[in-house]
């Protein structure tokens, strides 16, 4: 979809919906929203809906970066402690590497 051809109201609805859907534990949707509407929110000449779009874009960006931090810290903790946690770590793993503790 080319945003350039979409009327402003439609852009707002889109951005709004992407923001809402992100609450269903879908950080990627937020990330996409933030990047996709970045130009609309900050680089286009001002128009009526831009303010709200800006708001959604900022919150999406914050949301996805919180997710990113969470995921990175979890992955690091898990990888560092997998062997130490023993049975618990095995039960929450989908793939257990062979030949390593």
């Amino acid at each position: 979809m080319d945003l350039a051809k979409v009327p402003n109201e439609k852009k707002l609805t889109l951005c709004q919906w992407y923001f809402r859907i992100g609450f269903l534990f879908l950080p990627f949707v937020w990330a996409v929203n933030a990047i996709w509407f970045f130009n609309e929110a900050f680089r286009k000449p001002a128009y009526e809906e831009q303010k709200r779009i800006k708001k959604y874009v900022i919150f999406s960006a914050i949301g996805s970066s919180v997710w990113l931090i969470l995921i990175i810290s979890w992955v690091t903790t898990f990888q560092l402690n997998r062997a130490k946690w023993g049975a618990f770590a095995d039960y929450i793993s989908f793939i257990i590497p062979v030949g390593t503790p």
Partner: protein
Amino acid sequence: MGDNITCNICDKQYSNVSNLNKHVRLLHNIEPQVKKRCLVCPTCMGMFATYVDLRDHLITTHKVEMYKEEKCFNNYAEMKCAYVKTTGNKSWKNTEKVYYICHRSHVQRSYRYAPQEEQHKMEKSQGSAKASVTCPSTLDVTLGKQQLNAVLYFPHVGHTCSLAHINLTKTERKHIAGKISEGVSFEKILDEIRDSITDKTSLGRINLLDRQDLRNITRDFSLKGNIQLHQNDVKGVFIILSVKILQKNNIFQIPIMNKTIKCTLSACIILQILSRGHGERTKDKMYERITGARGCYRRLNATHQIADRDGSTGVIYYAENIEQLDFILHNGTAPPYIPVIPVKNLSIDVIKKLIDSGLVSGLMVHANNDSLDYFTHDYQCPNPLSSIDGTCRKDSMWNPHGTALLFADIPFPIFYLEEEEEVWKIRDCFKKFNDFHYEAQSDRPLCSLELKSFMYATIDTPTCKRRSSIMTNLNPVKFCDPLGDSNIWASLYPLVEGSRNETVPLRNYKYIVVSARMDTTSMFEKTVGGNSPVTGIVTLLTVAKYLKGILKQEDIHEAKLNVLFILFNGETYDYIGSQRLLYDMLKGDFPVKGLDETNSILPIIRPDDIELFIELSQLGNNRDELYMHYLQNRTEILNFYSKLHNYSEKMRDVPHSLPPASLHTFMKMLPSFPGLVISDHETSYTNHFYNSIFDDMHNIGFEYYPNATEQDIREDSLQYFIANVSEIVGKSVYETITGKKYSGKQTADVVLVNELFQCYLEDPNCKVHKATQKGKLPKVPVSLYVGVDHVANYATTLTSLTLGWLTADDVGESDINCSNHPRNYAFKYYNMSKSIQELNTTRCYKITMNTTDAISPAFIIPDYNWTSGQYSTWTESTWAEMNVRMFLKPSSAHEKMTIAIGSLSVIFSFIFVYFWLLLFLSNVGAGTSKFVTLYSLVPPREFYTRAIGNIMNDPAYLGSGIMCIILMMVLSRNSDH
């Protein structure tokens, strides 16, 4: 329907030959000769197996003049009658032979038992090319390296060379098919061909073309519906052209297969033969495979993992002694190294030194002719976790030379190399590339080894069992298997009485158990087990044979005391077999699982029913004295000792002592269990090679006497010693059961002892195994390592048959019904040889032998508490491959250079693709400016904005891009191993 096949012997009718054969085989006891080729003489219908026979017969009986001709054909038509191939090419040496037979011959393949009249082929009503008889004319073609030689046997007999029966050649058929596909009517084709006949001599098969042939061609080339009239497409034009050319050359004349064609053919074949085997892969050129290297498996128990770590590579250092090894550990400049050391240097100190140096990534141990004083890597107190406390003290240990390396977790792989040639190969490579100028080793290519033994399981058994059974695992892998196999047991006389189908269990009997262990282990993949366990096994088997000879069934019934022979498996790994057997016994699952007390099949044997438990331990390393170990002064034991001592002054008793033995399991659970162990050691093993590859025939001084009789075997040999021990034990058991001394003259069978040792130590194709089974085994001793639970060991199967045979009752003539005797839990029926002297005389034997699982109860108790230490928890890791390769590792400068070149070429390829894309894009965009953009080397701004804009403006692109990157990261992590 067709009940027309009759048995030649009893006139019974069968619907088909295979039923008849079954009948003949089972009822008349004759083995049918399967699928015999029958050649039928065209004149008298006599049957022959080979063409040579058939031709001889024709020459002598029917006075047919046969002649053979060696020739090279110019013309396919010259052959007049066509020849067909019925068998594949046969090749030997450098030549390949092809056998063609006359296409009108009928070669019968039939079973011998079908009556002769039925065998002849019936003529078809319309007649067919195949005659019902065999034409003796054949064509044997030899495809040599240089030429084709054909030998033709003449003449044809039994049919005339009528053109009508020859097939159209491929080319002819193709031409006609071309015509048909053009839409030429059948009528026209036939007319055209008839018209082309000019004189009688040029008459060929093609001239006899009829409508049926045309229809066949239409069918074979699937031309129906595809018929198209001339079109000026490629195909159509081609057809017209080819037809025209052919017309010029007298269309439809039989094409000639001339010499040139044949020679091209043979050239092709030669080329193919020559080029065979030249496709060598780069990998194979780089690596030299070292065969026969034996690694070791990682084994785990409830708390530890043992044996070496995964594979690795390292620079070879061939050390002949410790000093040389020290040299490289101090002066090595190109680590990691893989030292190659003689086997005598494998000791705990050396391993420690190697680990501490941090320069070593693997170890290769090779065999040489050094004589060793001791070599044992088990614990000083074997099976420390499952033995009774206080039976192995610090001041007197059973295995004082034990290094416990077998149970150490060594951080690098160790391989053992036996083949001398491979050792030389490694040594030569080392001398040529590595063995000089050590201070600058890293500046030149070095000969290196790659040791591969990647083990899946880690940490301990609970972990690997848990990981193997996690349901949420997306990639289910089995990490480890429990060690285990089967225990073997047999009773001297049946546990039941009564006639064949109405047996009743003999209840309220007591038992004397004679037992031994079945397994050993070693640091590496190979086991021998001369003294432990083979002397024990052989003694047990000889006692079984001896007791079967001297004890009568009535004695057993009178005393209500039977003898049980039990061979425990997996005893090296915390008494797996005995633990399981005792577990089964206590649950009432021995001899058979799931029977209640009042069943009508077998009596249930419990530990209380065992009156005396005699264990035969290692017996081969000390001929002067034998020791009877026991823990408690029970009257049964002391009485038995006095009997043993009566028969031989060499017997000594060792009270309050118990060497590592299956008895530990029983006495740990039931402290007053009446058991004793007979062994050749008093306080520590006389066997200095316990559980190692050197516990071999030389260790116990065994020398095989081929085809020996009693007189041939030396009186002071191991054979006589073991026979004597067996006799003493046998007589003592006899006395315990009957209450009186054995007064007969029978002695233990020393010839059997001789053969049995041979079976385990040299060649499993020994007479005893030949007597009990038909399989042929490789001429290396069968492995006595217990292995994993789901793989049955050869050794166990062979030993079970031997024990069964030695305690069996002869129930009559050997026949096919032997194995079909009514089966119940009490018996098995086998056809086996009468004795080792009469291998060819077989009899039917009723056997009481059976096996029970030797898998630790820890693996069958649900929610077993792994930390309890009650049962053996040994498992063996699964692994992917285990091998060793040698290769030339480039110098570090060379390696860096390779990496640099590689990276550079990647960068260049990126740059190249970038500009190529640029060119492509601008080409698409504005056709005129492509050269300008290419040479200006400045990418147009629009290019970025457009491409990035495209991606940014579409959530689908963006999302899938991110997913792709994450997926790639996950995959690359998981594919590390």
